[in-house]
């Protein structure tokens, strides 16, 4: 069934891909910020 925010879990591959993409995007953001702030520290105050 079509959901307003996508599809139900396990309904189809597209829905799973969508959840996976959300997770990867957010996890990548976390990693970038973590590394970015340490890089800021390396560059000095």
């Amino acid at each position: 069934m079509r959901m307003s925010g996508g599809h139900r879990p396990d309904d189809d591959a597209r829905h799973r891909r969508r959840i996976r993409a959300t997770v990867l995007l957010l996890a990548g953001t976390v990693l970038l910020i973590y590394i970015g702030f340490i890089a800021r520290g390396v560059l000095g105050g």
Partner: protein
Amino acid sequence: MTDTTLHTDEHHHARPKGLARWLFTTNHKEIGTLYLVFSLMMFIVGGAMAMIIRAELFQPGLQLVDPEFFNQMTTMHALVMIFGAVMPAFVGLANWMVPMMIGGPDMALPRMNNWSFWLLPFAFVILLSTLFMPSGAPASGWTLYPPLSLQGGNSFAFVIFAIHLMGISSIMGAINIIATILNLRAPGMTLLRMPLFVWTWLITAFLLIAVMPVLAGAVTMLLTDRYFDTSFFNAAGGGDPVMYQHIFWFFGHPEVYIMILPAFGIISEIIPTFARKRLFGYTSMVYATASIAFLSFIVWAHHMFTVGMPLGGELFFMYATMVIAVPTGIKVFNWISTMWRGSMTFETPMLFAIAFVVLFTIGGFSGLMLAIVPADFQYHDTYFVVAHFHYVLVTGAVFAIMAGAYYWLPKWTGHMYDERLGKIHFWWSTIAVNVLFFPQHYLGLAGMPRRIPDYSVQFADWNMVSSIGGFAFGLAQLLFAWIVIKCVRGGEQAPARVWEGARGLEWTVPSPAPLHTFDEPPQVDDSVTAHKDQLA
């Protein structure tokens, strides 16, 4: 709404029992319960530390504990209450309520949900174990400012590890909540039909994603400074300790909003229910929440006005901080407008919600006072700051958590809580918390510094009053724990829609909510949303 079909768990495999049930559960309701129970335990542990602090400060002079241990108590009290009590309580409430509110079957990532929770007990065992180490627990304040924080013993490594674990737990929880809200909404549950609690949590989750890695970066640099001879924050090696403060507060100020935005969501659910009116200004509430979240990123240096920064910087951070009063004011006026001419009743959740509006606003106003740079030079590091953030976090965040707990307890347990005891708990807490924290404004304005075990005799009277309020408030929370236990064990059967004025999908499922809800998605329209005027 056309379909709220509920499925029993008959078609599922036999579930493990006993400890295995809780260790391996992937169910959002059970994990929500785990978070809430953990939070209550940490609330009691952190509260016990507060009792030690207030007992020592009951009279001038050193009475009960040595100054080093006193500093460990102030540091650990903050870490336990922030990362162990308040944040897990909100995550627990989100776990329980968000899937039910959006008509989803569970969280989007149930196994990660289990992992998010089970990291926490390990993190706090590690953190609390430092109390028994030769060098003792961290004693430099929860901000862990270098160089002081780097001058302790080797328990520091355990503290950093614990903070990393808490951060990983929070980040995974935030990813889960965002993935759930963006992907598992029922048909018809458009973004602007979502309950305010869901909206505030969505925005909070984005804040967590943005700032928890900043904290992780800051404490990683502390760790390498301590053990690997780097000089990120060591001036002798070309580093800068003030840079730590900038990085810490770039995390720290949004963290304050992480602890208060979900509270706004809870209050926005409760007030319309007991005023029996739609929420006034739903859309403006959403935009105000987003505005507060945005502004939280550009005000961090108001925590460090006294470190010496350019006048232009001080002016920018002062005005940016004051601007936050605008969206916050919108929220307060919307809550008041919702109550205006409503058919109000005053059950315990509503009493806590009204107290929240009044007392949180006091914390907001003292925040505005602190935002004024020349005034902050007087208030900085005094008890005025302690009074301010306890009005925001205790009568704000903690009161909202208690309001939410009373509001949803019948839905979770299937039993009504004891309303008489709930009201006693409310009045006892509200009187005690003001006796505890209001005099601290006077102490701060008179110049009493924070984080000291001893003080000048002119501060004696108000410290004694504050300590009496503290003991009374602590005692009242034992009553709260008893009310919860009593409600779990039995009581009057709660109907599906527990409160007459309640609207939303969570009230269409039986009480207690079955383990699995909305396996078949409901069809949502305006008739089930709390902010559309269905009662007129």
